[in-house]
């Protein structure tokens, strides 16, 4: 359903992503783990072209886009098939919760106000925040804001939702509610690509885990293999460091 071939990205002289290939099936949950600065977030941002790769191809929803020669129209087309949940929630601060969820449906998808409102209320109910529909983002906790941004992503019915370290900016006691929401989204059959440092969550939720190191895919496989039986030295080293650091 989503297929990335030979994706390369550089910032100036430094190579950030080096020949990334990835295939994601419908309804699959893929998690990227690895040390900071290895290009996990950059890869996610290349998928919806918030970063422009130097080369490579992506196939999504039946259409193939060549990164090297992608047009403005194709960029919008590709972005409209995806949605992203950001580390800092990135809600529109001058709009209410409901407007945040509605806006893209009206502006981008040209839905009627009534249809967008119904859809938005349903998605807000799904993340348990229909009571906050008329609140402004700054009136909510970080965890609630992140759940609104998940509802905003769901509301445009994307082919895939990209989660970029969705719990990294949260106070520890708020992480749980967001992970629970992501778990429910995954359970509903949505295709998900997730970048996270929440290792046990990654192990629970993922169909496949990709360990990235220095801009390359170092190892990929089912969560049990990566987390329990990795025979890859870098993966073992990273996970060992990670567990000693956090436990």
């Amino acid at each position: 359903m989503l297929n990335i071939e030979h994706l390369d990205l550089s910032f100036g002289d430094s190579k950030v992503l080096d020949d990334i290939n990835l295939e994601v099936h419908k309804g699959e949950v893929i998690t990227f783990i690895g040390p900071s600065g290895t290009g996990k977030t950059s890869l996610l941002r290349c998928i919806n072209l918030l970063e422009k790769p130097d080369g490579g191809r992506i196939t999504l929803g039946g259409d193939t886009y060549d990164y090297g020669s992608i047009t403005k129209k194709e960029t919008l087309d590709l972005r409209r098939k995806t949605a992203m949940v950001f580390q800092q929630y990135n809600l529109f601060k001058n709009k209410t919760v409901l407007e945040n969820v509605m806006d893209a449906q009206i502006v981008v998808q040209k839905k009627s106000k009534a249809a967008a409102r119904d859809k938005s209320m349903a998605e807000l109910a799904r993340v348990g925040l229909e009571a906050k529909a008329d609140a402004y983002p700054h009136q909510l906790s970080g965890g609630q804001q992140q759940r609104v941004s998940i509802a905003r992503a769901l509301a445009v019915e994307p082919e895939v939702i990209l989660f970029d370290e969705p719990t990294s900016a949260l106070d520890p006691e708020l992480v749980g509610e967001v992970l629970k929401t992501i778990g429910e989204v995954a359970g509903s059959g949505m295709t998900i690509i997730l970048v996270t440092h929440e290792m046990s969550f990654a192990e629970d939720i993922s169909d496949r885990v990709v360990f990235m190191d220095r801009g390359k895919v170092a190892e990929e496989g089912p969560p049990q293999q990566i987390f329990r039986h990795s025979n890859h030295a870098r993966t073992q080293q990273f996970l060992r460091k990670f567990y000693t650091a956090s436990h």
Partner: protein
Amino acid sequence: MFDIMTVFESFVEILKVVPKTLLLALIILVLSFMLGAAITYIQSLGIPVVKQIIGVLQSFLRGTPNVVLLYLVYYALPLVSAWFLGLFNVTLDPSSLNSTAIVIVTFSICYSVFQSEIIRGALHSLDKNQIEAAQSLGYSTTQTLRKVIIPQVMVEALPDTMNAFLIIIKALSLAFLVTVVDIFAQARLVGAQSFSYLEAFVAAALVYWGICVILTYAIDKLENRMRRGYA
């Protein structure tokens, strides 16, 4: 002898030019805002020589009194426009240039520099995150501008812009130097008719102050409404 009735009569006379003064100030505000937006945009492109030229112009406009600029334009604009139109074989009688136009041109240029600063500050207050959120949802550049950037930048820029409006209204008192009759000029005329200058200027001060109070109140209301619940 100070006569309160004369103050009242002058007040009524001066009120007659308030609409014209406000309109003039509004035109200048809008033009300087547009010019300021253009300056901000051009500066953001960072084109080497252009950037320096605009920098020097900004420093010149900031460092020169309005009254000097007004005279500069008053004497230079007819020459410049005659020369410019001459290029297209159109002849222009310099004396036909309207002094109101000269006031508008001068003040629009003067205040564009300040408007540019205001717009730049407002743009800085907008975080890039929201723009990325819009892009990630497939908003086009125009949609992002219209739905995300402009509504927030407008609110941020509103208090300073309205402050600039009050400054322009007051600065227009210089316009009488080139024969444009604003509030202050009208006060001089009214005072001259009956040699009751003190009463006329007291009335003028009250008119200016009244405008300031009403506008400040209206702007506060407007800003609160535009910000609605958000911080």
